[in-house]
């Protein structure tokens, strides 16, 4: 058993995974405690704090992140401890335009370059009025990326679905699946 644990730990270290992945089967799945979605394909899923991440080909290539209920004063990503005070903070009274800025600035501080947003507009999040915008960025190694962000503030908490991937192949590869997932949101 000890040996198995050691091997698993080694595999996780080698693959850069801090937490293990679980399989999301096709069908309806609960995301956090607010809503469920329906997927037509399988995804590998992992969770860090309030962010649940799904991917097919690896999170460096494409990732579907569900941000589950950020409360007033919380940050999107955990910065290095020393830098926490510098991370953008969600405020419950933010306008949707400010929420977009909060997301974009948070993403930019994660080491991505030329992070830009476009097309902010109202968008249905399940039966709730939410918003949507598109993202573009370049990795520190120069790889172009693309993203779409759909979200809503429900009971003063911020819920986001962020789909991102390399512009050339991995973002478009599962974009249609992701659009169906977003369209399938059903509040619990």
């Amino acid at each position, binding site marked *: 058993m000890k040996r198995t644990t050691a091997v698993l730990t080694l595999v996780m270290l080698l693959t850069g995974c801090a937490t293990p992945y679980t399989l999301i089967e096709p069908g309806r799945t609960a995301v956090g405690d607010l809503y469920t979605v329906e997927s037509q394909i399988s995804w590998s899923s992992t969770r860090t704090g309030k962010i649940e991440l799904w991917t097919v080909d690896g999170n460096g290539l494409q990732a579907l992140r569900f941000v589950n209920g950020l409360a007033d004063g919380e940050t999107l990503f955990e910065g290095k401890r020393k830098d926490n005070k510098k991370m953008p903070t969600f*405020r419950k009274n933010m306008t949707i335009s400010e929420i977009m800025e909060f997301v974009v600035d948070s993403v930019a501080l994660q*080491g991505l370059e*030329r992070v830009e947003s476009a*097309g*902010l507009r109202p968008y249905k999040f399940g039966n709730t009025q939410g918003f949507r915008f598109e993202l573009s960025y370049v990795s*520190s190694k*120069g790889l172009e990326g693309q993203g779409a962000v759909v979200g809503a503030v429900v009971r003063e908490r911020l819920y986001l679905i962020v789909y991102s991937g390399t512009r050339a192949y991995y973002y478009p590869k599962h974009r249609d699946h992701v659009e169906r997932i977003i369209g399938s949101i059903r509040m619990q």
Partner: protein
Amino acid sequence: MSLARTGVLVALLLSTTACAAQRGSPGALPDIQPGRRPDLETEEAGLWMQTDRLEADLKTSGALVADSALNAYVRNIVCRLAEAYCADIRIYILRVPYFNASMMPNGVMQVWTGLILRVDNEAQLAYVLGHELGHYLRRHSIQRWRDVRAKSAFLEFSGLLTAPTGFGPLASLGAQLALVGSIFAFSRDNEREADELGFGLAVKAGYDPREASKVWEALVEERDATKDSAPFIFFATHPAPEERIENLKAFAKKSALDGGHAIIGREQFLAQTRPLRTMLLRDELRRREFTGSQVVLDRLFEAGTGLGELYFFQGELYRLRDNEGDREKTTAAYQKALEYGDAPVETHRALGLLFFKTGEKEKARLAFERYLQQRVNAEDREMIEAYLRQLE
């Protein structure tokens, strides 16, 4: 430093004589010669190889500023400072909102956009670049390499040097480059030498010697305001800025006695950098280092160019900082911005959002409508129209 003395220094610098080895700190090497690469079997060649790898990463970096006019401008300054080495130096301008410039031993010069935002004119930029050229010409990196190795810290040094290629996808380029900067933490003697040499190069190129110390004074002001030296990568590798200011002032005093061409180059500098300033200010505020950013903004206000844009970003700083009383200050700054012709159209949207939040419906409606009128193809038109519907 007098022009005559500078001339001698530069002549020495550019000469091929081996007597350069007798100058400077213990372990000083002959200056690098134009067009030269170290012999393959030397340790210096190993150091170059490592930095060649870093350069390969830089070439594809997402942080590279592609603006060809700005790149050509900085290159022209470098070539003016060290003409014989012009072909040996590759310049990479990186979109990193911190003050830094550095040179690798293989001729790679990095200039961060945070530096461009923090200098007032071409002369100040030239003095910083001249300082970095001083390190390069005097081969301080190889000296540092030897010193560290002699102190049995070779593995640490080597590990640092190779570390950037192994960074994870989320590590920022800024962090990587800061690490590289820390590798080349030169000795005080090296720093003094680079200051003196860089100063000489800039004076010989005709730049006003009084501008050299101003760069450091501004940085010290920012550092003291923030009470946090962490963002000042340049300080991390360049000790004792106060001493440096005094030295540079003393050099300038001597130079001034001999007169000079006194190029400040404010107009040229603005012509090349002003179009990028909106982006640089946006990046600056993303740092969420509001005290330091306020010092930067204050200096830009003092210089007095593009006040509409500056008041807009002043408002942005207050809004993002969100301290007690900042909401009123934000409104006042946006409104002040609109008194100037160069206020960004986004100022109307920003005011609209502010009034939207405070429930001042009529003011919000007017501001949003002005935004949509002036930005006919606004990419967020649907959202603004949705706000307007909510105001009805």
